C-alpha cells in the first residue's frame, strides 16, 4: 500500500498542487504541449495515488497491486510526476521529461519508468487492455482492481465502446474508468466536435454504473472512489467534471493550452497561482 494512502484532504490538495507545479515546470522547460490536459487531471491523480490505489512503490510488480492505466497518454508530464511523488522513482528524474537521452517520453511510457503499467499516446488503447486485466482478476477471484483514466475526446475512439460492451457483459465490477471531462479536445470544445452528451445515459445504456463528480473536489472524488464497486456486477464509470488548465486562471477553458507551453515568465506567474490555490 502506498505510504501516502491515508493522506488527509489537505494533504491530497497539497499533492495536487505539487503535481501541477511539476508538470508546469516540465512542460515549460521541455517546450512540449498538453499542460491544460495535465492540470485538469491533477486532483484525480492526487486522490488515486494519495488515497485509493493499493500499490507499493518498493515492489512495482507486486502481483496483488491495483492497476492504473492512464489512457490519455498526452498527460504524461503529470503522470510521471505522480509516480515520482508516490515514490516509484526519484523526483529528480522528472528532468528527463522529453529530453534527449532520457526515458520519459512526451507520452506515457512504461520502459524504464517504474509504476507505469502501460504506455499510451494513441487514444482508445487503455480501456481494452484494462478490461483484459479486469477479466483475469475477476476470473481468478483476485482482490486487486483496475482503474483507467481517460479523456473526453478519447471517447470518440470506437475501441472504447467495444470494451464497454464487453466489460458489462462480463460483469467486471472490478473495473473503473475515470473520465477527465474537461470539455475541450484537440481542436475545439467537445460539444462543437463530437457531442458526448448525454454521456452518463450512454454509459447507463451500456450497462455501467455511473457517478458524476466534481473532478477537482478531492473529498467527493475520494468518497466516490472509496466505495467501489458502485453496484455489484457492473463496471464503474466516474464522470469527473473538470476544467482544462485548472489552477492557472489564464489557462482555464482555453484550447490554446492544449498546445502552448508557458514561457519562463509565464511559468513564474503560473507557479505562483498554483501555490496560492
Amino acid at each position, binding site marked *: 500500500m502506498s505510504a501516502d494512502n491515508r493522506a488527509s484532504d489537505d494533504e491530497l490538495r497539497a499533492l495536487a498542487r505539487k503535481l501541477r507545479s511539476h508538470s508546469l515546470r516540465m512542460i515549460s522547460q521541455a517546450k512540449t504541449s498538453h499542460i491544460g490536459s495535465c492540470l485538469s487531471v491533477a486532483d484525480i491523480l492526487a486522490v488515486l495515488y494519495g488515497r485509493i490505489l493499493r500499490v507499493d512503490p518498493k515492489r512495482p510488480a507486486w502481483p496483488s497491486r491495483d492497476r492504473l492505466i492512464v489512457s490519455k497518454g498526452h498527460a504524461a508530464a503529470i503522470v510521471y510526476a505522480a509516480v515520482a511523488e508516490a515514490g516509484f522513482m526519484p523526483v529528480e528524474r522528472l528532468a528527463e521529461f522529453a529530453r534527449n537521452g532520457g526515458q520519459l517520453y512526451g507520452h506515457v511510457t512504461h520502459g524504464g519508468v517504474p509504476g507505469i503499467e502501460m504506455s499510451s499516446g494513441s487514444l482508445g488503447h487503455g480501456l481494452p487492455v484494462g478490461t483484459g486485466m479486469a*477479466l483475469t482478476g475477476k476470473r481468478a477471484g483476485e482482490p486487486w482492481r483496475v482503474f483507467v483514466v481517460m479523456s473526453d475526446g478519447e471517447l470518440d475512439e470506437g475501441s472504447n465502446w467495444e470494451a464497454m460492451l464487453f466489460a458489462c457483459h462480463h460483469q467486471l465490477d472490478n473495473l473503473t474508468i475515470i473520465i477527465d471531462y474537461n470539455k475541450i479536445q484537440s481542436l475545439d470544445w467537445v460539444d462543437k466536435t463530437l457531442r458526448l452528451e448525454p454521456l452518463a445515459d450512454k454509459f447507463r445504456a451500456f450497462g455501467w454504473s455511473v457517478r458524476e463528480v466534481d473532478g477537482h473536489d478531492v473529498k467527493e472524488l475520494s468518497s466516490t472512489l472509496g466505495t467501489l464497486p458502485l453496484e455489484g456486477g457492473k463496471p464503474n464509470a466516474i464522470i469527473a467534471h473538470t476544467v482544462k488548465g485548472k489552477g492557472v486562471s489564464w489557462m482555464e477553458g482555453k484550447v490554446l493550452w492544449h498546445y502552448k507551453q508557458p514561457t519562463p515568465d509565464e511559468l513564474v506567474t503560473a507557479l505562483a497561482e498554483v501555490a496560492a490555490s
Partner: protein
Amino acid sequence: MRTAFIETLNELADQDSRVCLIVGDLGFSIIEAFAEKHPDQFVNAGVSEQNMIGLAVGMALTGKIVFTYSIGNFGTLRCLEQIRNDVCYHRANVKVVAVGGGLGYGNLGVTHHASEDVAIMRALPNMTVVAPGDPIEARLATRAVVAHDGPAYLRLGKAGEPVVHTTQPDFELGRALTLREGSDVTLIASGGMLATADKVAKDIAAQGIGVRLLSMHTVKPIDRDAVTRAATETRYVFTLEEHSIEGGLGGAVAEVMAEMDSGHAPLKRIGLRPEFNTTVGDQNYLKSLHGLDQESVLKTIQQIIARSYGRVG
C-alpha cells in the same frame, strides 16, 4: 492446419492453465471443444478486433499466454495499431493467429484475401512471424510459440492442407527445415506452398537437377544462415509463398541476399502479384491465376533453369 492448431492448443491448455484463447466471433465447428473444456481459458470477444487484442494484452500482462483467433486480415490489419503498440511494444505474451492465410477464403472476396499480412507483421519490432508448411509443422509451431515468451504471429491455412513431412522434423523457431538436399537450385517455401514446392522439387529432380528444398516456416527472424548457404552453395534460389511478392518471404530472402558480402545466386520470387483480385474463384483457381499451381510453378522454374542453363546445369 487449423484443426492441428486447435487440437494442439487444447492439449497445451490441459497442461497449463495460463494458456487462453480469445476468438473474434469466428471459428465455428473448430473452437467449441476448447470452449467447453476450458471455459475459464476461453473468451469470445465478439466482432471487435481492436478490443480482442487489447483484452489479450491485458490478460498477458497479468500472467496469461493468450492466443487471439480470427480470419486473415480481421485479426491483423483491423487492429494493427493495437498489435504494434499494445502487443509488440509491451512484449506481451500474445500469439496472434490468422486462419485462411493467402487465398484460403478465395471465393468470399478480396476482403478475405490475406495477401499482405506477413509483410506487415514482419515489419513490427519484437514480432516473430511463423507460417507453418503443413499440419505437422502447425502442431510444432503452436507448441513453439507457447514456449517462446513474447509476441508471435501464427499464419495458418484453412483446412485440408496435405501432410508434407514424412518424419517428425526437428522444429525450431527461426531455423529452416531441409526437406531435400541438392546443389543446383534451392526452393524456399513458407506456409501452404510447401506442398506445391515439394511436388515441384520432385519433378525437377526427376530431370536430373539437384534440388534443395527448405521450409522457411519462420519468416521472422529469417534463417539468414540457411539463405546464405542456399545463395552460395546452389546456383538459383526460388521463394514460394501464398502472399504478395512484396515484403513477405521473398522480400525477407531478398534482403538477406542483397546484403551478402560476396557473390550469390540470382533470386526469383514466386508469389501473388501485388494487386487486388478481380475474378471470382476458389483458392486453387485463384492460385492458378497467379501462377501458383504446381504446373505453373514448375514451368516458371524450368524456364529460368533453361535460360540460365550455363550456370545451373
